[in-house]
């Protein structure tokens, strides 16, 4: 449905002034506006979390999923979709998408907590990385097993969820997820100076007056909160956390004081644009946004990889 800009502005004006709303106004205010805000929020959270994880792991190819949060959230959601019926026969109020989102959020946080506890048993960041890989693999095995057990209806829900979509946007959802996400978006950029120092190594960060052992749990917590909330609301939307910080590093360099706020902005813009494209390119159907970002992000990632390889050969 095509609504001209003047109508959109008119709808916003009528809404703010409390005038009576037309049918188009409801589409703008109840469907489109929350969807755009959700895209901005989720894009910003994913990109900023990605930039923070890349700094923490001192690896420009790190992804927020490295600490187990995406796989944990997926396991939570799939568990609710497949086994949820068993409990929700009793509490059918919870059975809807809020139940799935809640389970995904809890799953993301739980997996990250497990990764962090396992990873801190050894010094350095490597143990955290290995624990993240292991826990993600186990969680994905659980997803596989549940997929195998799922009925046909459940399989359809499950597939739809795993493709990612911003279609479930509503004001209630926005209100629920904006708390953890805004917390992360406000606090992550404050660690920019410490992340810059950490790029030299943990010892150098200590020598410059920072405490990496305090930075690690703070960043992991904020990333787990915001990415769990994102995955819980929209499913898995890949590559935003990887591509946006990368593009910004090419433009502005690696200074986190620019990179973190820049990623918030860039992520918001990119995901809003991608969602608009996915809604319109095969209208009236919608291309799943997770498919679109992977379709664009995958080749970009490969290009980065090949470019790095060529650079190594040349130098």
């Amino acid at each position, binding site marked *: 449905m095509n609504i001209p800009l003047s109508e959109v502005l008119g709808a916003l004006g009528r809404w703010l002034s409390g005038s009576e709303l037309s049918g188009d106004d409801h589409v703008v205010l109840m469907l489109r506006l929350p969807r755009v805000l959700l895209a901005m929020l989720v894009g910003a959270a994913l990109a900023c979390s990605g930039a923070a994880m890349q700094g923490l792991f*001192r*690896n*420009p190819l790190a992804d927020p999923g490295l600490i187990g949060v995406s796989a944990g959230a997926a396991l939570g959601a799939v568990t609710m979709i497949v086994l949820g019926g068993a409990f929700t026969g009793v509490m059918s109020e919870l059975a809807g998408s809020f139940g799935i989102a809640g389970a995904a959020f809890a799953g993301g946080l739980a997996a990250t907590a497990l990764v962090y506890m396992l990873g801190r048993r050894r010094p350095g960041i490597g143990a955290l990385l290995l624990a993240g890989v292991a826990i993600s693999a186990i969680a994905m095995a659980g997803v596989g097993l549940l997929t195998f057990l799922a009925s046909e209806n459940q399989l359809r829900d499950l597939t739809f969820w795993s493709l990612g979509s911003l279609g479930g946007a509503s004001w209630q959802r926005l209100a629920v997820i904006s708390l953890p996400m805004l917390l992360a978006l406000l606090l992550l950029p404050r660690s920019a*100076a410490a992340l*810059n*120092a950490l*790029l*030299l*190594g943990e*010892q*150098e960060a*200590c*020598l*410059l*007056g*920072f*405490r990496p052992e305090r930075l690690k749990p703070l960043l992991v917590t904020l990333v787990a909160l915001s990415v769990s909330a994102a995955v819980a609301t929209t499913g898995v939307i890949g590559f935003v956390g990887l591509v946006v910080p990368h593009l910004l*590093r090419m433009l502005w*360099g*690696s*200074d986190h004081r620019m990179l973190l706020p820049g990623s918030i902005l860039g992520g918001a813009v990119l995901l809003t644009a991608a969602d608009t494209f996915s809604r319109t390119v095969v209208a009236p159907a919608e291309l799943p946004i997770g498919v679109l970002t992977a379709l664009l992000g995958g080749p970009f990632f490969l290009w980065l990889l090949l470019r790095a390889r060529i650079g190594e050969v040349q*130098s």
Partner: protein
Amino acid sequence: MNVALDWRVQNQPTGLLIADDVHLSRGGRRVLQEVSLTARPGRLLVLVGPNGAGKSSLLGVLAGLLAPSLGRASLDDLPLSQWSLPALARRRAMLSQHVQLGFAFRVDEVVMLGRSPHATGGASAKDGSVVDAALRAAQAWHLRERNYLELSGGERQRVQLARVLAQVWERSDGPAWLLLDEPEAGLDIAHQHFVLQQARKMAQQGYGVIAVLHDLNLAARYADEVALLAQGRLLRHGSPSHALDPQVLSAVYGLPLRRVPLDDGGWMLGPV
């Protein structure tokens, strides 16, 4: 904070960096035993000793990175464990052996990281002029706009030296310390001598400088004081001619060494 300030007003900071009966165990191994050493600002102290003697560990203790298992390390008579990390970072900087940096940064941005313990955190014009001065002092000024990742090992070493110098450039609240862990590693002979000359110049300007060196002849030539370590113990500490005694060194390194007189009245150490 106010307590510390009052304390400052009443007592001029001594600037002494002291290891007092330091013991250190790492992974069940005793790497330092009964090490007591007083380092003074304005002097270049060089730590020498065979591989595994505990030189880098002692430097780590004096930097406040490693907490002694027994004994204590202190600056201005305050144990390093009681310093706030940013305050300590403004008073001592350390050049480590292995600095990892896998992200594309411009050289002047890398040096600016040295300003992060300061209130302005690299945002002020003063920070910019300190970075410039530190780059010049480390003979890395011409590299300032290059990508750090594209530099050679020796160039990176000089950029890291500039970063470390920028960290303690102004010495506002007491004599500052430069701790250098094998600063000559990976450098050609001209730059090796340059780095040691620079270290001595900083000492003459009032910095305390402690360097771990493997090259005994660089130590003999530039050090004001030498401390000889072996198997985690401090064997000798004093002038280069006292600490670098050929008989003691021969026993410590397991290689017979002798002094070879030089034309200018100095001497070099070489195998018998």
